[in-house]
């Protein structure tokens, strides 16, 4: 009997092995934005609550690199990243928050509970800016350079180990 008889079986076993391997890999649902390297799309959003400033594209063009934090009071991982945003604020980083589909009373309650690291907080009721910058969930954090160019995208909540990396990205954007 020729060895070639076994070939289809080996091929099948190979596919089976590949499928089994892929099943053991964690699922990656993150969708990276194609807007990194592009200019921030035009927007001009109202304030998310009383006593804070809204945000517009023009706020990002004064020569200072900033973080643009896409978040929401209804988003649980946003609570987890609050201490890290606080540390970035203490390091002197201006952080602009955009609250996605949020109510002003909920925003106020969240900030009272978890601290307010933002220099501006705008509301995006229709996820328009979120879609325009290619963000697919909350939280996400973008590094915007002083000319309003998107330089880096961080997907998911900011962990303690990400703080130094974000500071380095901000330095690179200077």
């Amino acid at each position, binding site marked *: 009997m020729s060895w070639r008889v076994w070939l289809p079986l080996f091929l099948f076993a190979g596919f089976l092995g590949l499928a089994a391997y892929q099943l053991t890999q*964690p*699922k990656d*649902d*993150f*969708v*990276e*934005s*194609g*807007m990194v390297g592009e200019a921030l799309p035009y927007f001009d959003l109202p304030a998310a609550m009383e006593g804070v400033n809204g945000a517009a594209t023009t706020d990002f063009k004064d020569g200072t690199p900033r973080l643009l934090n896409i978040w*929401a009071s*209804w*988003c*649980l*991982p946003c609570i987890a990243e609050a201490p890290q945003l606080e540390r970035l604020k203490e390091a002197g980083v201006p952080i602009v928050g955009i609250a*996605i*589909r*949020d*109510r002003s009373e909920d925003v106020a309650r969240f900030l009272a509970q978890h601290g307010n690291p933002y220099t501006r907080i705008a509301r995006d*009721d*229709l*996820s*328009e800016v*979120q*879609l*325009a*910058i*290619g963000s*697919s*969930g*909350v*939280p996400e954090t973008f590094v915007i350079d002083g000319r309003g160019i998107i330089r880096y995208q961080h997907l*998911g*909540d900011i962990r303690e180990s990400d703080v130094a990396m974000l500071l380095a990205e901000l330095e690179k954007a200077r």
Partner: protein
Amino acid sequence: MLLSLAPPLAAQDSMPPAPFAYRQLDDPTQEAAAQDLMETLRCLKCQSQSIADSDAPMAGDMRHQVRIRIAAGEDPEAVRAWLVQRYGDYVSYRPEVSAVTWPLFAIPALLVLIAAVVLAGRLRRRAS
């Protein structure tokens, strides 16, 4: 275990849906074009559904974008391109022949060709 691997997408907001998330356009031709497009766009929060099929708030906001852009006279393929620029080919369900995907189209054709050659060879041998 599986839960801990899930991305941060579980929470939902309590805001009302976007104006054109569930409202059809008045012009039936435009609505049909929007509907065709929405059926071939992936919901980013519920990634195995199209935005036409999903009740996720973000899918509603994407439908709103599609409808207002088409109502403003934008070509459906321009709207698709706008989203692909942001989210990659991933956001579009429509099969596209590109530098990455051409083997998916070429391999079946190649297999059919090989099968035809083998079959022709065997038939000839049997005839002789």
